[in-house]
């Protein structure tokens, strides 16, 4: 009797637990409004809805930026479309954490804006229905985006998940600036003082560094000159460019493509050669700033601004930022150097395609069609430019040809600071293609200058091929995520050790063996497979 009672209580408890579950979770509370029967909704033209409708969006926000609801550009959009956005702005540094919390707890907004969804997020949350496929909505309700995707099949391919759906919308400025971020800079003033000409070969460069170290070019009687400083394996400040002088240019991923074949640079003989040279000729002689392996950007940038000029040579994609505008005339860019065997080339960055997770619509959204029409506004190149850099009449004005040109800045504010305050900024929805630059909007003056330098100094020494930003299958992505971070970390640590300690010949074989043990071959196979598939798809389009 007692036993029955107990069993009964247990069963009751179980039933409660079950009913609790299905009541709480399960399908979304909202039913999607059928747009064709919604009298409030305009399928074309503006405003999008007759009576104001509110959508809830979560978005990251730069630290200096105000709440998006107070941002001029969004106020205008609201007036035009009659769609009110209830913004939840999260400081960009905490965004990833909060986004994952919202997704994991099912506390979903209507859409994530500037969403920063990784491929992994897109596939997983797409698969379980948390975010909805967008391709049909794009066809029906997003004329601007549709036009863009029709015109540029490569963009469409880049944002299409392996299962054929589009879950996230693109974000891109196709300015071709990121092909090579490693601008090698040398102190021209010191070269002149020491009677040296601009180095053309690696050996001449080494001689110049030695002279910088030993001949007191800044004339203060102290040996405080830093011949060469850089940031080990960091974006835009590493010496990966130098490796081209040995016949095989490198990049931060150590992955390049030659005639459709993926090559891992960090196990190649040329890479080994380069490490040996750098250790023997530079590190051993004290030509490399030892802090190059540890410093952060703030320390690095401060080195160029010491009271006495101490920096001889450095890597950064803009001269002024390191040494300040006044000293920048002392410094000159160094074209790729000729190596011991006459090789002269520079690496090329991988990827560089559109970002694909900048806008997603969740299953909680009752008005996906309306949301799609709203976001499509931003795929008009004019609007995209304003979202990325700032609104008309605040940052831009239209010239007689209808192109957006920069207005003068308010006094005492830097452009970067000002733009953060008036527009969401780069990385947000919207695509400005290469064709749009010069027609719709000018590149920022500094970016333009960089593009010119790139064209003049580096592009001629660059191979065309790189590894596109490919959307992988989930299981491939799993494998890459499992193998690659550890492997790259190991390669980079070893690179630092080889440069500092030498002993390249002695330790090379065990280094390569360790990489193979870590799954290098499997990783390269996945990359090769992905590339082959990508190229085949591109041909079919």
């Amino acid at each position, binding site marked *: 009797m007692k036993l029955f009672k107990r069993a009964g209580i247990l069963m009751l408890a179980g039933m409660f637990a079950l009913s609790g579950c299905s009541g709480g979770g399960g399908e979304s509370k909202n039913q999607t409004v059928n747009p064709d029967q919604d009298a409030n909704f305009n399928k074309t033209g503006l405003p999008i809805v007759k009576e104001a409708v509110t959508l809830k969006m979560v978005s990251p926000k*730069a*630290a*200096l930026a105000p*709440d998006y609801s107070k941002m001029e550009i969004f106020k205008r959009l609201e007036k035009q479309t009659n769609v009110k956005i209830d913004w*939840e*702005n*999260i*400081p960009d*540094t*905490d965004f990833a*954490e*909060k986004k994952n*919390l919202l997704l*994991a*707890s099912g*506390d979903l907004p209507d859409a994530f804006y500037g969403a920063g969804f990784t491929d992994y997020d897109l596939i997983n949350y797409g698969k379980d229905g948390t975010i909805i496929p967008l391709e049909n909505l794009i066809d029906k309700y997003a004329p601007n985006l549709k036009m863009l995707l029709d015109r540029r099949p490569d963009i469409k391919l880049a944002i299409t998940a392996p299962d054929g759906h589009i879950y996230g919308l693109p974000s891109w*400025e196709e300015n071709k600036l*990121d092909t090579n971020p490693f601008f090698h800079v040398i102190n021209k003033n010191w070269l002149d003082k020491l009677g040296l000409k601009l180095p053309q070969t690696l050996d001449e460069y080494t001689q110049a560094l030695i002279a910088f170290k030993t001949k007191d070019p800044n004339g203060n009687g102290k040996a405080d000159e830093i011949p060469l400083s850089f940031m080990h394996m*960091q*974006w*835009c400040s590493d010496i990966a460019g130098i490796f081209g002088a040995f016949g095989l240019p490198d990049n931060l991923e150590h992955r390049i493509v030659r005639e459709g074949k993926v090559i891992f640079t960090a196990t190649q003989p040329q890479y080994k050669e380069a490490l040996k040279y750098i250790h023997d000729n530079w590190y051993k002689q004290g030509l490399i700033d030892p802090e190059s392996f540890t410093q952060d*950007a*703030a*320390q690095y*940038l*401060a*080195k160029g*601004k*010491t*009271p006495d000029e101490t920096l001889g040579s450095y890597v950064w*994609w*803009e001269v002024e*930022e390191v040494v300040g505008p006044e000293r920048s005339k002392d410094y000159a860019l160094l074209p790729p150097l000729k190596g011991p065997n006459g090789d002269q080339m520079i690496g090329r960055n991988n990827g560089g395609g559109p970002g694909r997770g900048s806008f997603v619509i969740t299953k909680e959204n009752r008005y996906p069609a309306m949301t799609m029409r709203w976001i499509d506004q931003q795929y008009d190149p004019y609007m995209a430019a304003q979202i990325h850099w700032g609104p008309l009449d605040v940052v831009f004005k239209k010239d007689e040809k209808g192109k957006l040109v920069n207005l003068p800045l308010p006094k005492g504010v*830097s*452009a*970067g*600071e000002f*733009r*953060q305050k008036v527009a969401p*900024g*780069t*990385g947000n929805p919207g695509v400005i293609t290469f064709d749009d630059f010069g027609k719709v909007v000018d590149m*920022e003056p*500094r970016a333009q200058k960089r593009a010119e330098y790139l064209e003049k100094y580096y592009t001629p020494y660059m191979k065309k091929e790189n590894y596109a930003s490919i959307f992988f299958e989930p299981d491939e992505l799993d494998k890459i995520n499992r193998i690659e971070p550890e492997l790259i970390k190991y390669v980079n640590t070893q690179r630092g050790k080889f440069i500092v300690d030498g002993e390249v010949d002695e330790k090379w074989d065990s280094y390569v063996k360790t990489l193979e043990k870590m799954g290098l071959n499997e990783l390269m196979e996945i990359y090769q497979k992905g590339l082959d598939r990508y190229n085949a798809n591109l041909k079919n389009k």
Partner: protein
Amino acid sequence: MNQLLKRKSKGDMWFDIVNYVMLTIVMLLVLFPLYFVLIASLSDPNLIYSGEVWFFPKGFTLDGYGRIFSDSSIWIGYANSILYASLGTLIGVAVTVCAAYPLARKGLAGKSVIMWFLLISMFFSGGLIPTYLLIKDLHMLNTIWALVIPGAGGVFNVIIVRTFFQSTIPDEMWEAASIDGCSNTRFFWSIVLPLSKSVIAVMVLYHVVGFWNGFFDALIYLNDESKYPLQLVLRNILVQNQANSSMMIDVESYAAKMRVTELIKYGVIMVSSLPLLILYPFLQKYFVKGVMIGSIKG
């Protein structure tokens, strides 16, 4: 005899000297970082990075403080932090003391069961997402309550206070009071609380420091920037200069961010730690007494 005394005092002297030297070194080790933050807040950021600043401010500037004092978000954060810390401390201390007192008394039925439950919660928590969902379902998201209520009555604090009560308020006192016709409530208010000032002061300090330094709850539960406590505002300022390399597309804004950050980083540390530095000396005299008694016989 005389000699022995002399030798001993010599040894004592050396012991004292060594002691003082060691303590001075420790003191300098503790004080110097504080002092460095102070002088760094008055120096040119570039000189700090090139290692020129180490004992006196160089490139003297008040720009950092100027920016801090003109930045409204810092002041809003200050006001919020004071509100959260005072309200949170009030609730937290009240709950802690009220929970600890009955658990310290002999007559409470089911005492050990309650203690068990409390202890279990000390070692196992629901985890971030269930907690978030709970706060959400209680409709406390984006309100002050999400910060001050869930953490009230921490078990560890309850144990400290309970032990304090057990060891300083003898049962005989209650017997004597009850013979005189004192009720339980009256006894708690008029006898227990006045005798427990030191442990309450310690609890106040624990809570104030906790609320003042805490940012994670605010980060998770608050959406509205005007509700951010000071530490979250500061965190947003400080983490600005940790550049994510792949996101570093807009160099210009990166440089702008960095200059601002470097300029105000140290000043902000000064401004934010000042209230606690001021508060601590007033509570310090209770501190040793309160914590020591509370921690013995746990």
